[in-house]
């Protein structure tokens, strides 16, 4: 019997094929979803495959989160395609007003569970790794295949083990952890690989922080970013799980292709400068880098503790005159909690725009597009050329504390400057 890494152990529990890094295995899929953009091509390919019914409507979902509430006629027409198919198939679908950004909503609603294999037609599906699921992004055709068969093929990834030690200092969060890791690996340092985050430091992180970290595994080229499930994971899922699950753990003595040890205690607030997530440097070393907009939200950093961290800094203060601050809680659970706790009032009084859940500005969809020459500090995940608007605009990636401090000072700032 082989010793498996976490990714290998999950694949082994879903296949009859021999599991070893590099092998291609046929695996059963526990849950498969698309969004309003990736659903129409998936549906088209599903029909071309000659499929008539999805393998299990309770394990297939469409989430209208990207260009919603629909920004124009074309995106409205596109949303109709997904909505109609969802009704026809009886698969899981939540309408605008109830749905959230997919990678925030699905774990929160208990559809992504430890030990699962999850496919999503969205690259940030790797967020589900925070729950100890092998969750990975695919294109629409692969997703259509999973809807038809309840199965897919996966190349067993090599594993990049990350041992986290210590605990985060105040003013440092999950985003600083993952940006610091990508700063070390580069944007293809984990290409085709699965991260396995573990150790005492991992245990000290909240589920929200773990989701931020797992979310950006793809930005290092990773197939997945898995946290070894622990009591924090099980406490999170036990009240949410929509179906039975079995948590899977890595074996002692498994082979890791690469390893890194990171002391959380020495990390500082960081940013990733344009135009790659690997361009990481301390927030305090950015000089007088003026900004026009700040976006706090997205599948990376739109959860309750993210908004809470921003509110802690913005409370009783005003956003800089030159800056537009856009805050988008990533789900209604988060939005309503912000309402109940008075966070939305703090944000409104600080001069922020507050929107209901959408991916919106993260991918230059709507709700905060940048003009040529503009610069935005964003808590999202990509700072590629043209990502949030004009190809002549710039995106600086950061966590919510750096974002909030930057909104107050009108430049890229370290949160300790406003502490």
């Amino acid at each position, binding site marked *: 019997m082989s010793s498996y890494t976490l990714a290998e152990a999950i694949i082994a529990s879903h296949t009859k094929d021999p599991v070893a890094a590099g092998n291609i295995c046929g695996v059963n899929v526990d849950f498969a979803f698309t969004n309003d953009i990736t659903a129409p091509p998936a549906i088209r390919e599903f029909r071309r495959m000659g499929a008539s019914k999805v393998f299990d409507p309770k394990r297939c979902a469409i989430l209208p989160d990207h*260009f919603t509430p629909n920004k124009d006629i074309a995106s409205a027409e596109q949303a109709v395609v997904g909505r109609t198919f969802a009704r026809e198939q009886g698969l899981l679908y939540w309408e605008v007003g109830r749905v959230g950004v997919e990678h925030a909503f699905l774990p929160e609603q208990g559809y992504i569970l430890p030990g699962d294999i999850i496919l999503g037609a969205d690259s940030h599906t790797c967020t589900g790794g925070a729950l100890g699921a092998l969750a990975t992004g695919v294109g629409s055709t692969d997703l259509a295949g999973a809807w*038809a068969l309840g199965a897919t093929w996966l190349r067993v990834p090599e594993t990049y083990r990350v041992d986290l030690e210590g605990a985060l200092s105040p003013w440092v969060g999950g985003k600083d952890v993952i940006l610091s890791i990508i700063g070390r690996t580069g944007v293809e340092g984990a290409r085709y690989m699965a991260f396995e985050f573990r150790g005492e430091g991992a245990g000290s992180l909240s589920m929200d922080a773990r989701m931020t970290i797992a979310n950006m595994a793809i930005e290092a080229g990773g197939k997945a970013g898995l946290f070894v499930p622990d009591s924090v994971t099980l406490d999170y899922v036990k009240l949410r799980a929509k179906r039975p699950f079995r948590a899977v753990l890595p074996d002692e003595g498994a082979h890791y292709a690469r390893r890194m040890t990171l002391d959380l205690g020495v990390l500082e607030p960081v940013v990733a400068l344009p135009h790659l997530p690997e361009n990481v440097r301390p927030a305090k070393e950015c000089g007088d880098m003026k900004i026009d907009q700040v976006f706090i939200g997205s599948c990376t950093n739109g959860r309750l503790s993210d908004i809470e961290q921003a509110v802690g800094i913005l409370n009783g203060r005003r956003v800089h005159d030159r800056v537009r601050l856009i805050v988008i809680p990533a789900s209604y659970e988060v939005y309503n909690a912000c309402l109940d706790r008075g966070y939305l009032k703090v944000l409104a009084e600080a001069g922020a725009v507050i929107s209901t859940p959408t991916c919106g500005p993260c991918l*230059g969809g709507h709700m905060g597009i940048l003009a040529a020459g503009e610069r935005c500090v964003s808590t999202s995940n990509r700072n590629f050329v043209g990502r949030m608007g004009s190809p002549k605009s710039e995106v600086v990636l950061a966590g919510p504390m750096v974002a909030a401090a930057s909104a107050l000072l009108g430049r890229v700032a370290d949160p300790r400057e406003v502490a």
Partner: protein
Amino acid sequence: MDTSLKGKVWKYGDNIDTDVIIPARYLSTSLPEELAPHCMEDIDAGFAGVVSKGDIMVAGNNFGCGSSREHAPLALLGAGISCVVARSFARIFYRNAINVGLPIFECPEAEEGTQKGDELEVDLEKGLILNRTRNVSWTARPFPPFLRELIGLGGLVPYVKKQLGAS
């Protein structure tokens, strides 16, 4: 069936991401012909208007990184690109290209030995890449056996169709 492609090279660097291949602001459609006019526009505004059917894209490491949008290989196909040769591919793009029928070849040597405007000839079955301008040839990294089978069947759609028929 002719398994050889000939075309003029469009050359780009490392980390050509899917936002650059087709910006998200155009994703209200997934039709190749509607995506094509915007393909590569954020880094090369001249590309879509000048690219000829059959041209070949050659790029550096991590081609197609970023978003899972299948619209990226579809936009390249719509623009007339017949195949992509790169030092390496991001994993989701790699799967997507195979699934939508855009031939891709991993070949660092070809990337090093090729310049924009060169004439390439690519043998799809053998993975043989010939630079006719410089009269040099290289062999691309072979696909794993399962993927060769998948490509041979015509991609994932016929593969799934066959599986559904079998079950």
